[in-house]
């Protein structure tokens, strides 16, 4: 039986310097085949060229935000599964293989999640927004075979961006909600769970989350107004089901 095709969507806006390593981490995945879709969200720094040079399929759009960019990628995807990577982050090479194998073995699941390690970009100064000592206080999980975080690292932490979903999930619940400026991944996951989508979080690190000066959503400031709004929406959905 042929291995299933996985569509990987990378939205990017002016992150040409990080995009190359992000794409490389997708192209070095042990799982193949992969359809790599980079959605250039109005970049002016040559991000699209970086993607094209590496053989990615590039979709260009005027800047409409990360959710609209991910949705454009979902729309264009032809794979059995869809995964997402932010343009400044990296994947371990076995990430897709582990998650896709699990989904293949468990047809009742509609998506899987895993964990992320955070790391301060070693080639840049420590981000000015990162409070001293914050990394040491991050709530972490013990995972088999995962070494404790070293200096400038934190984790493993549960992370929404470790999502790998069956393509049909998006046909059922729609894509990312562009009205959220933060917490978009959590909004999508709550909506999926409220719709009864079965999922598991697998006990391994599937994402290396880079901390740098220009993170769009620094992790200690995950847009609490958006978080409260998405949870209220979830409460209303759940009440309607009772």
């Amino acid at each position, binding site marked *: 039986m042929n291995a299933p095709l996985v569509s990987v969507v990378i939205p990017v806006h002016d992150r040409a310097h990080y995009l190359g390593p992000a794409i490389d981490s997708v192209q070095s995945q042990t799982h193949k085949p992969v359809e790599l879709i980079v959605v250039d969200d109005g970049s002016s720094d040559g991000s699209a060229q970086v993607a094209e040079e590496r053989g990615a399929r590039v979709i260009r759009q005027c800047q409409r935000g990360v959710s609209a960019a991910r949705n454009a990628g979902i729309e264009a995807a032809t794979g059995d599964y869809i995964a997402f990577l932010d343009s400044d982050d990296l994947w371990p090479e076995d990430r897709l293989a582990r998650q896709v194998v699990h989904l293949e073995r468990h047809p009742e699941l509609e998506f899987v999640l895993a964990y992320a390690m955070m790391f301060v970009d070693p080639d840049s100064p420590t981000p000015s*927004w990162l409070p001293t000592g914050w990394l040491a206080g991050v709530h972490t999980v013990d995972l088999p075979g995962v070494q404790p975080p070293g200096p400038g690292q934190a984790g493993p932490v549960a992370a929404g961006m470790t999502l790998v979903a069956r393509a049909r999930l998006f046909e059922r619940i729609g894509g990312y909600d562009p009205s959220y400026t933060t917490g978009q991944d*959590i909004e999508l996951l709550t909506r999926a769970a409220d719709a009864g989508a079965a999922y598991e979080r697998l006990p391994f690190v599937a994402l290396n989350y880079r901390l740098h000066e220009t993170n769009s959503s620094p992790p200690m*400031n995950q847009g*609490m107004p958006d978080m409260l709004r998405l949870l209220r929406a979830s409460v209303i959905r*759940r009440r309607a089901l009772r």
Partner: protein
Amino acid sequence: MRDHLAIKSQNLVHDTVDGETILIHLEKGNYYSLTGAGAEVWALVGAGKSSEQIAVELAERHGRPLEDVAPAVTTFLHELLEEDLLEPSVTAAASNGTPAWRASSWRPPKLEKFTEMQDFLMLYGSSVRQEPLAPVG
């Protein structure tokens, strides 16, 4: 239960919209909804009112006998304390006045707890204060 309670100062975010208060306990990953007179009670706790003062205030607002309102308030505050959404206050907090409220019929305060999203919300959980940090980039 101590008479004076305060809204938990760390790892809790909350907001009240359309008479309903939503809370996220960032350590536990639970979220909660306060309905009925729950949002009123929450606002009065935030204003530094004691359990007794809250009951008296609600009885007056809603024209209900204090003996009906007080047990409901006590039970509700106990639930909030049990869920680690409030914390005992060593001293009576300075009262910040009485929060504005919209006239409504009396419905006892109700706490709804949602645990299904723990897996999504236990993201970082490290000493997040109520006041969000200034957004970056």
